[in-house]
């Protein structure tokens, strides 16, 4: 509810601001262009992730000192601590980095981000930065249109820098003219109340803009125009540092526990650093003054002094926090423990069941039945069908036709949750038990393993089919909708047939019934191919749609066949298993193909 109100309110306030003050409009446009530049820059560097950047990250984080240094350098180059944080979180989530190395990078990124303040204060305000923006934008946009990924990446970086410079220019201009009409410095608050108030404003601005860099640029440009006092600007810089953790926190929300711990470390580091900076702000100002005079910064060059302050308090944070790094890691691991994923585990595969061939086969059979049930469920849900409807006598064709959209159910997640754990355990169990048994049980175990493989394949094929199915069921193209509905109807009916056959025969299936179902499925496939050939021949569907349908009808056929095969191993009884004579009436693959040929 609150979320729904915040955005329109913010837009209204901004619109009112634009109406009453053209300067406010210029400053806001500057911030917007600057943020857009940041996005472009991130996009550009993202083009190089997965390659050189990743390799560098791996090599450069073998020790804490190296990690910190890497954080400093990478953030200085990319001018985005957010991008470095997000890459670090993804590396950590993938298990390619240790939490200690990840935290080291974050510490370094905080120091690296201060180079932005130096660049703006030392270069951005003293040079006509807009003059550099234009060529960068032109070159950048030309490169963005290139097909090469690397050139595109360079293009985004150039355009990003161009927009950053342009944004700074607009902010500078806005504040310059602003001071002629209104003096914001009159609203300055002195002493600790001012420090706390402006720290809070800095946090708020950074949370809203999702960029400490933007807050810092805004602060420096306002400071250069004399719109805020030096003391309040320092507080804003502290606030920006604390507020920037929100990006990492938001990024970690979708990450695993390791990512969340890293975001936690970021929050702790920046909060502690901020608290130290607030507590010792006047002492730090003295240090800044002393250092500035040492390196030749003029006493009234407050923008550069702000950059010095920003660097010093981040450096101080590292000095204080680095010795506590291991304790921080232990604490984070304690408060954010590794959550065990909710994965279905085997129920019957115990050490005792592995002791005897009979019990081993029975245990694997019962587990495979669980996999069978889960696979049927995933296939039904994955193709946007209703389980109760599929397993009833209702007119499935009509029900599917009436459906106008298919929810894209996360098949992979369901596979991980309901099948993978049991399947892996079955494979491991069979490998453990088979070596000493050269009897019937060993063959049964192999057949059961194959049945599991068929079920897993059926699930994976459903995943392949799902994307196009969801697209075309929800489309206005009636022919494609009909074709995809036919594919899922055929699968749905196979599931219905299998369950119906099991129910009517007390859970035991007749091989001849399953062979009959297989022949029906093969015939369906033939009809699909013929219908498809006609559609392509008539030009009713485009070649792209046609090729999608060809591929997907193969997937659909495989799903049905895999389910039937698994059911055959699991639930069918055959005379051939009982007697030698039975083998002489059993039909093999060539016999079934012969029947199919005769049916034509």
């Amino acid at each position, binding site marked *: 509810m609150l979320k729904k109100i915040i955005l329109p309110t913010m837009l209204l306030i901004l619109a009112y601001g634009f109406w009453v003050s053209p300067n406010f409009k210029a400053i806001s446009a500057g911030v917007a262009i600057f943020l857009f530049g940041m996005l472009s820059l991130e996009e550009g560097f993202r083009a190089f992730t997965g390659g050189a950047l990743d390799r560098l990250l791996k090599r450069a984080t073998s020790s804490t000192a190296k990690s910190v240094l890497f954080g400093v350098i990478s953030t200085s180059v990319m001018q985005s601590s957010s991008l470095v944080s997000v890459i670090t979180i993804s590396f950590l989530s993938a298990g390619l980095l240790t939490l200690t190395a990840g935290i080291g990078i974050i510490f370094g990124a905080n120091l690296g981000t201060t180079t932005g303040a130096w660049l703006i204060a030392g270069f951005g305000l003293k040079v006509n930065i807009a003059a550099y923006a234009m060529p960068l934008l032109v070159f950048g946009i030309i490169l963005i249109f290139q097909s090469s990924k690397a050139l595109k990446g360079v293009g985004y970086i150039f355009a990003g820098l161009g927009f950053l410079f342009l944004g700074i220019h607009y902010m500078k201009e806005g504040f310059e003219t602003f001071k002629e009409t209104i003096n914001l410095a009159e609203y300055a608050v002195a002493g600790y109340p001012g420090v706390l108030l402006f720290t809070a404003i800095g946090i708020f601005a950074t949370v809203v803009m999702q960029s400490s860099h933007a807050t810092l640029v805004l602060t420096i440009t306002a400071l250069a125009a004399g719109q805020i006092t030096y003391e309040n600007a320092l507080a804003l810089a502290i606030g920006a540092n604390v507020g920037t953790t929100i990006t990492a926190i938001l990024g970690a929300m979708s990450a695993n526990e390791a990512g969340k711990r890293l975001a936690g470390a970021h929050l702790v580091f920046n909060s502690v650093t901020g608290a130290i900076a607030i507590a010792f702000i006047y002492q730090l100002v003295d240090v800044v003054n002393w250092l500035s005079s040492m390196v030749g910064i003029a006493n009234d060059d407050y923008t550069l002094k702000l950059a010095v302050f920003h660097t010093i308090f981040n450096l101080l944070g590292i000095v204080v926090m680095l010795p506590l790094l291991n304790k921080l890691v232990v604490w984070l691991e304690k408060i954010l423990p590794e959550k065990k994923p909710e994965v279905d585990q085997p129920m019957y595969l115990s050490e005792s069941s592995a002791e005897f061939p009979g019990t081993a086969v029975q245990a694997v059979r019962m587990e495979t039945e669980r996999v069978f049930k889960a696979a049927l469920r995933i296939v039904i849900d994955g193709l946007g069908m209703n389980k109760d409807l599929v397993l009833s006598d209702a007119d499935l064709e009509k029900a599917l036709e009436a459906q106008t959209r298919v929810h894209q159910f996360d098949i992979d997640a369901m596979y991980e949750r309901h099948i993978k754990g049991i399947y892996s355990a079955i494979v491991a169990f069979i490998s453990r038990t088979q070596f000493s048994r050269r009897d019937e049980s060993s063959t049964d175990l192999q057949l059961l393993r194959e049945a599991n493989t068929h079920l897993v394949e059926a699930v994976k094929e459903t995943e392949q089919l799902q994307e196009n199915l969801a697209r075309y069921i929800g489309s206005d193209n009636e022919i494609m909708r009909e074709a995809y509905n036919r594919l899922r109807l055929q699968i749905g009916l196979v599931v219905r047939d299998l369950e119906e056959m099991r129910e009517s025969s007390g859970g035991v299936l007749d091989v001849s019934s399953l062979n*009959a179902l297989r022949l029906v499925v093969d015939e369906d496939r033939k009809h699909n191919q013929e219908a498809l050939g006609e559609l392509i021949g008539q030009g009713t569907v485009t070649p792209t749609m046609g090729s999608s349908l060809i591929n997907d009808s193969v997937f659909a056929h495989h799903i049905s066949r895999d389910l039937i095969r698994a059911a055959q191993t699991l639930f069918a009884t055959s005379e051939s298993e009982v007697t030698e004579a039975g083998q*002489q009436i059993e039909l093999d693959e060539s016999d079934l193909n012969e*029947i199919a040929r005769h049916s034509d």
Partner: protein
Amino acid sequence: MKRKKLLQALSELLGQKKSKKLKHLDELKTLLAKLEVKRIELKEKIPLEKNKRKRKRLGKELEVIDAQHAKGLKNLQKLENP
């Protein structure tokens, strides 16, 4: 004495073999009879089935049973007239 024992063992073996073959033939004949019964049942069942898909499936099952019966019969003939 040894020769006598050997002949006895041989005749036992031949007798056993013969009975095993006969047993196999009997089993095959029983299966064929079962298939025949199933075929008759299916032939009666198919026209009564209202559901089109089920009818189609039962029709295919009849084809499967026919093929099994033909295969069994062929094997039976081979066994009877080797």
